[in-house]
């Protein structure tokens, strides 16, 4: 993984963190806000796992396992909210 790519990913992660904090302060409906917040947080999760942890270079099994985990987590939380 090139350093420039890592730097770009880090910048995106910081921008997403600020976006999440801003969205949380908006006066939208609670469930809509939660969907946006969780979606952005899952993007950050995937950024860290695929780029910082180099999962991008790993076997497809590990990529699929992480994607499956975040998908299930997202769906269950949204259903329960």
């Amino acid at each position, binding site marked *: 993984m090139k350093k420039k790519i890592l730097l770009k990913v880090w910048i995106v992660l910081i921008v997403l963190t600020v976006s999440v904090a801003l969205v949380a302060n908006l006066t939208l409906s609670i469930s809509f806000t939660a969907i946006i917040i969780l979606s952005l947080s899952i993007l950050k*999760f995937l950024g860290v796992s695929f780029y*910082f942890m180099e999962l991008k270079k790993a076997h497809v099994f590990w990529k699929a396992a992480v994607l499956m985990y975040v998908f299930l987590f997202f769906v269950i939380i949204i259903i329960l909210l």
Partner: protein
Amino acid sequence: METITVNKNKLYYPPGGILLWIIIFLELFTFGMALIAMVFYSKYEPEVFHNSRLLLNSTFGAVNTVFLLTSGFFMAISVKSFKKNNIKKTTYFLRLTMFGGILFLVLKSVEYYFKIESGYTIGYNTFFSFYWMLTLFHVIHVIVGLVILFNIYIGFKQQKSSNSVEDFESSAAFWHMCDLIWLLLFPVVYLIF
């Protein structure tokens, strides 16, 4: 400069090693189930969860997210430098990684101090029971991660370093796991209720 390469495109060798990834998934499932339980219980006491969530300082949470993400970024650069056999850069970025972790713990301690002083302890209500259990469990992981990184750092400082790429990648994977857990905790505990 000699570059050390490890073939990761194998099922049995994800970056950091299969055993560490089994631990990572176990941890993610544990925290995931606890967060799902928290959301489930919020249905019974929506006002308590909403009012309690407002008592948390989400700015502290966001700043802590930045600390951990930045620390994770330095960790990734450190691993990259190690693979290029650049030990000087490796230790430099490793120090920055640990500094990020320490900043996280300092800010978390400040947050805990204010919560305890205000009386929002683990038995205050259901929300704070989850808050304390989840965040303290995560803090323990960060402390363990820091101990592992410090151990690796000491290994680099010795005349003949005993650290292998696999060891270093495993340590890095554990550290990134702390990021991953926090990235799930922060939105659920601090923002969505």
